[in-house]
């Protein structure tokens, strides 16, 4: 204790006092410094060094791992995807937050609205991912998004009554996308047999009766029927046990292809075109009858997975932006806004010229926070993207984890990806320190 150099001009006892003081400081700081040192500082240095060694750390490989990042297709895709996240998410989240904050400012029930939008923030990104995994399912009977799109799509462009049907014999030409037409030209007095097959029993329209076998008549007579019965039956021939297909629209065209008439089939599938001029006609069924019902957009497929993920991510974070911006908005002095309005500025001008510039610091905080979050995005990708499309959905943090712990177990390359991530957030570190310096001075 006596060996401690006494502070200049201090009484001799000060040496012991100073030692004591340092011991107290150390007691307060020690645990934190130990944890920060062992769990953050040491690993950071270690990871930087590790990134220059091979997968098991036995050989120095120089910058090979860094070259790999940009040549390995899966990892490079992660960088490209993450770039898309960076371009879209911070700007969009900030904009949505601003719009919500401004619109709710003078609405009485804003607390209810803000709570609803903010709630996903409390949910983990992983659980949010599970939520969107349920929402984004492709089958419109299960995924709510596709169910909604399906309702709209089917209202505008309804599915045909016989979406799976096809011709039972080569007598009909064409396909589902163009409609089916009887190959043979018809004249008044002829019989048109439009046989279809491939219709499951459940899809036979209700009210169907035994198919009619029309005899020749005055005009063109015919039948649209399910040319199939248990055991098969003879194609192209109306047989007992085969059902007529009601409510099918049959179109009659003349030799030039111009539509002459159209009619609906009866319960037994029969139809008739009377009062025809002599000449050559062709009968067929339009493509609308065969239109497929909405099969669902493949949100979780390789092409749309990143947009689907970004959508889910914005759902989570918009509330954060809204709350922070609303707090900034509340701090703007009322008289500044009033002054602008008194000077005759419109609401839009006030917003554009007064509110937004005054909010700029808050908006930039939100933007930067989102930038960091997006660079580190991980959980939601792992939760929403099925295993088979994780290569397509890849982001930097996920690539790092999959390379290191997800079966590849390449600690060298994994370290290099971690360092890349670190380098990307480094400018923000500089910004934080600068801000602290200006606040401190």
């Amino acid at each position, binding site marked *: 204790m006596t060996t401690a150099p006494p502070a200049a001009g201090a009484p001799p006892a000060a040496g012991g006092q100073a030692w004591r003081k340092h011991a107290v400081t150390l007691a*307060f700081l020690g645990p934190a410094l130990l944890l920060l040192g062992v769990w953050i500082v040491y690993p950071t240095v270690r990871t930087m060094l590790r990134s220059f060694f091979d997968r098991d750390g036995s050989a120095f490989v120089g910058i090979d791992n860094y070259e790999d990042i940009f040549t390995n297709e899966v990892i490079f895709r992660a960088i490209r995807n993450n770039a898309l996240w960076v371009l879209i998410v911070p700007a969009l989240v900030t904009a949505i937050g601003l719009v919500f904050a401004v619109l709710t400012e003078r609405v009485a029930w804003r607390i209810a609205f803000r709570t609803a939008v903010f709630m996903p923030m409390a949910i983990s990104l992983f659980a949010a991912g599970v939520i969107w995994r349920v929402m984004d399912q492709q089958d419109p*009977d299960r995924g709510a998004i596709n169910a909604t799109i399906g309702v709209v799509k089917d209202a505008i462009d309804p599915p045909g009554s016989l979406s799976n049907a096809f011709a039972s014999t080569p007598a009909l030409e064409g396909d589902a996308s163009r409609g089916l037409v009887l190959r043979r030209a018809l004249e008044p007095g002829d019989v048109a047999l439009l046989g279809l097959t491939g219709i499951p029993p459940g899809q036979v329209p209700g009210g169907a009766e035994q198919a009619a076998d029309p005899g020749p008549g005055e005009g063109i007579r015919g039948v649209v029927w399910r040319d199939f019965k248990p055991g098969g039956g003879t194609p192209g021939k109306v047989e007992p046990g085969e059902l007529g297909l009601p409510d099918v629209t049959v179109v009659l065209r003349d030799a030039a292809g111009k539509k002459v008439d159209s009619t609906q089939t009866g319960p037994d599938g029969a139809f008739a075109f009377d009062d025809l001029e002599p000449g050559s006609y062709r009968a067929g069924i339009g493509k609308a009858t065969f239109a497929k019902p909405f099969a669902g957009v493949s949100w979780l497929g390789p092409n749309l997975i990143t947009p689907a993920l970004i959508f889910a991510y914005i759902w989570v974070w918009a509330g954060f932006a809204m709350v922070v911006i609303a707090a900034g908005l509340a701090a703007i002095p009322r008289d500044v806004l009033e002054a602008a309005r008194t000077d005759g500025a419109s609401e839009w001008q006030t917003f554009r010229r007064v509110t937004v510039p005054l909010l700029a610091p808050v908006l930039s905080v939100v933007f930067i926070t989102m930038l960091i979050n997006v660079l580190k995005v991980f959980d939601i990708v792992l939760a929403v993207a099925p295993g088979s499309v994780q290569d397509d959905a890849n982001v930097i943090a996920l690539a790092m*984890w999959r390379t290191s712990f997800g079966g590849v177990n390449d600690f060298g390359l994994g370290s290099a990806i971690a360092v890349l991530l670190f380098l990307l957030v480094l400018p923000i570190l500089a910004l934080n320190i600068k801000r602290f310096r200006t606040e401190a001075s």
Partner: protein
Amino acid sequence: MASVAARAPVVPRPAEPLSGRILRVLGKAPVHLFLAVIGLLWLIPTLGLLFTSLLSASDLGGGGWWQILSKPSAATWQNYDALLSNEQITDSLLTTLQVAIGSTVLPIFIAALAAYAFAWLEFPGRDWLFIVVIALLVVPLQMALIPIFSLYNTLGIFDTVLSLILFHTAFGLPFAIFLLRNFFIGIPKDILESARIDGASEFRIFFRLILPLGLPAIASLAIFQFLWTWNDLLVALTFGRDTKPITVAIFNQLTEFGSNIEIIAPASFISLALPIVVFFAFQRYFVQGLLAGSVK
């Protein structure tokens, strides 16, 4: 005076005719409508998960969760019953609770000690050291995963509750120290000085003065740290494959998504119910903490 004021005509605000008022309300109708639709849209996904969790597997085989709207009688607790009698899941929930509580109490206590030193103790290199702490704020978790993975294996504590708590504690420290130091520095200097003159030791001051005064900041921080660690997947998946916090348990189920939605949906809902309860109970602190911490 009072009687004059009372008799004086109210500021001659032109009496707004009824039609004007109706127009004003109607003019705002699109905004109300827009907000109502957006608010509803924002709630639907979470409600969708809740409804999914309340339907039996066979009902879900036949259609989406919205069938519950037209057939509320289909709702059943059977998925939850099955889940809560599944020991793996209840163990996972318990593990998560241990990890989250440990990772909340430990870093806040350690950070409060350090924050007090940064705010009120004089020592060489104080500002410089605090800048280092701010710098550590942005170090991505990913930088530590591989070395700590090796370290845990060497120490023999890999895949334990303790290993998870220690990792969360370390990475929770920079933000906690930053927030608490800024809060503590705002405590009036006189209070501390007079305590020191009265001969109170620094520890006494810390426990008797600083901690009670810092409670609002500590509460915000605790909520954040609790939610953050309860919701964590990355750390749990790296160091807790067998310790298996609830996120890892759900993640394991996700690989067979489709065949086991009756497990995934209720498990996910339970895992997010606690954070939502915490959020609603402490909403004020949550928002405060968010505003203070949006530099992270």
